[in-house]
């Protein structure tokens, strides 16, 4: 396969050669923020929203990337161009991953230059492809989201141990389980890298953004729902609402959206991806000019 190049501290290099020092705060104290954008047929999708969110994360965490937002966007787009041959060589589309750490430095030592990287990963088709038609299984985990008073979930950071533990708890309950976390009040918050929506009586509902990451794909669903005339409500949702919903789906950047047909091993609706979920997916595919499900299935099937 054609070599993929990545941007690392001002230089382009083979991605396989990028290495992090163990003394980088991004590694030893989870002191990093990141974001990721996907491409559709090689064109970035909502890059501006992702870069905006990255710069909000940087601002909150007070890490200086040393690049303006425009420069970060330009670098990210440049990498898409540089890696176009690799994309056409079986990758399909990219996950463009931007990460900035506070740099190498000792605890309470002098400030150091940030470590800045943009790298290019495949979409991870095997993670998503099987679930567009069969539906994914969710598990509400014992481990909860961070409280905004401890670490606001709006920041996209590398200190994700609660998600890692939730991931294992989900697998304990259902070998195909995708974790869903509650907030400190017992309301639904989010998964480990995806937002959750339910459909009840023709209305799309999703948690407010007080205990979640404000997903760009979640925003895209608002746009699509607006076009299709489907009402959307942001509200506090309990496990009850999930169990009794007609439809449930996740949204995230690589998959766009993923139908959920089981929660805590209970069947949701009639156990198949629902009509509103399907309608949204079809409209999204039209919007970006790529058959989202077909592409993911083709990538998963391999050449």
């Amino acid at each position, binding site marked *: 396969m054609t070599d993929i190049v990545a941007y690392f501290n001002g230089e382009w290099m083979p991605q396989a050669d990028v290495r*992090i020092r163990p003394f980088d705060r991004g590694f030893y104290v989870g002191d990093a923020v990141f974001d990721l954008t996907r491409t559709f047929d090689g064109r970035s999708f909502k890059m501006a929203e992702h870069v905006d969110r990255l710069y909000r994360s940087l601002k909150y965490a007070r890490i200086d990337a040393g690049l303006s937002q425009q420069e970060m966007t330009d670098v990210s787009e440049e990498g898409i161009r540089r890696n176009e041959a690799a994309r056409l060589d079986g990758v399909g589309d990219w996950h463009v991953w931007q990460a900035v750490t506070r740099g190498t430095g000792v605890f309470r030592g002098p400030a150091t230059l940030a470590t800045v990287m943009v790298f290019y990963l495949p979409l991870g088709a095997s993670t998503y492809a099987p679930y567009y038609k069969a539906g994914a299984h969710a598990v509400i985990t014992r481990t909860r989201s961070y409280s905004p*008073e401890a670490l606001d979930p709006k920041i996209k950071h590398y200190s994700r141990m609660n998600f890692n533990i939730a991931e294992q708890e989900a697998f304990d309950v259902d070998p195909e389980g995708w974790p869903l976390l509650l907030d400190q009040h017992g309301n639904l918050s989010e998964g480990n890298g995806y937002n959750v929506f339910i459909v009840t009586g023709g209305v799309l509902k999703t948690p407010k953004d007080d205990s979640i990451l404000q997903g760009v794909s979640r925003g895209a669903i608002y746009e699509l729902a607006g076009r299709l005339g489907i009402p959307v409500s942001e509200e506090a949702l309990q496990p009850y609402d999930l169990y009794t919903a007609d439809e449930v789906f996740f949204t995230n950047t690589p998959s766009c959206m993923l139908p959920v047909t089981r929660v805590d091993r209970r069947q949701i609706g009639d156990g198949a991806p629902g009509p509103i979920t399907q309608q949204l997916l079809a409209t999204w595919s039209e919007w970006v000019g790529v058959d989202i499900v077909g592409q993911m299935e083709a990538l998963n099937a391999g050449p």
Partner: protein
Amino acid sequence: MKETVAYKNGEWMPRSQVTIELGDRGFYLGDAVFDLFRTFDGRPFRMKDHIDRFFRSAQFARLDPGFTPDELTKLTQECVERNEPLRSEFGDWSVWFSVTRGLAGWRTLDARPTFVMYAGEVPFYTFANQYAAGASAVITRSRNHTHQSLDPKVKHTSRMHLNLSDLEARDIDSAAWPIMLDMEGNIAEGSGSNVFVVSDGVMSTPSDATILRGVTRDVVFELAEQMGIPLSEEPIQPYDVYTADEVFFTSTPFSVLPVTRVDRRKIGDGRPGPVATRLLAAFSELAGLDVVDQALRFKNARSDN
């Protein structure tokens, strides 16, 4: 200084050659636990307690260090021995070791873990002057995670809330160390340290429901008992801190550090108190060297350069 020797996945190598891949879950997901102990004049201190805690952290996070505790003990001893010729005058090591879930994708948990160990110099310059002058602390807006989100007993690398808390403390007072509250508004812990207050001759410290159980905290419990100082584990509010006769931190690098300012308010008479001073002396006896004197000598030797 010549380069120290570090360890990664079965091999010893110069420290600069130890690297982590982008796709290591320890990096991109904070999916790692660690521990560290220090040496006193080159001798490991309470290594067993640190190794035991490391294995509890790994057990909770379901990470496999790939060693038995005995094997890890031998390895940490080897790390100290290999680096002994490089230990600087007055210097000592912080030996840091970590296991990550390895090079694996999202929703993939069955990778080969990454294990890293290295020895770094105890950063005496970050606290040497504060034994005599007293450290400054600030109760930060960022709070500790609840055990329902991520139990603070686990020593993990997902420390963004501690990093932010550290910045917030310095916003208020430029050299301050952070103190975090739990969700109920009680004092929890510092960023890598435990908090004690002394009032009317009684020491109190938060119970271990909302903190990392510090090895040095346990040592102070032992010393307090030997010295006949009453000690209680109980919920502590900012009120108790502001009105205390003494406040101090405990932590592996500095052992016991008197705190004389909290939120820019003077604690007690504004000087390190007698209990903290006695504890430091007793700790020094246990460690086999004068911890305050060492920190100052190290710092002064460096600033002469």
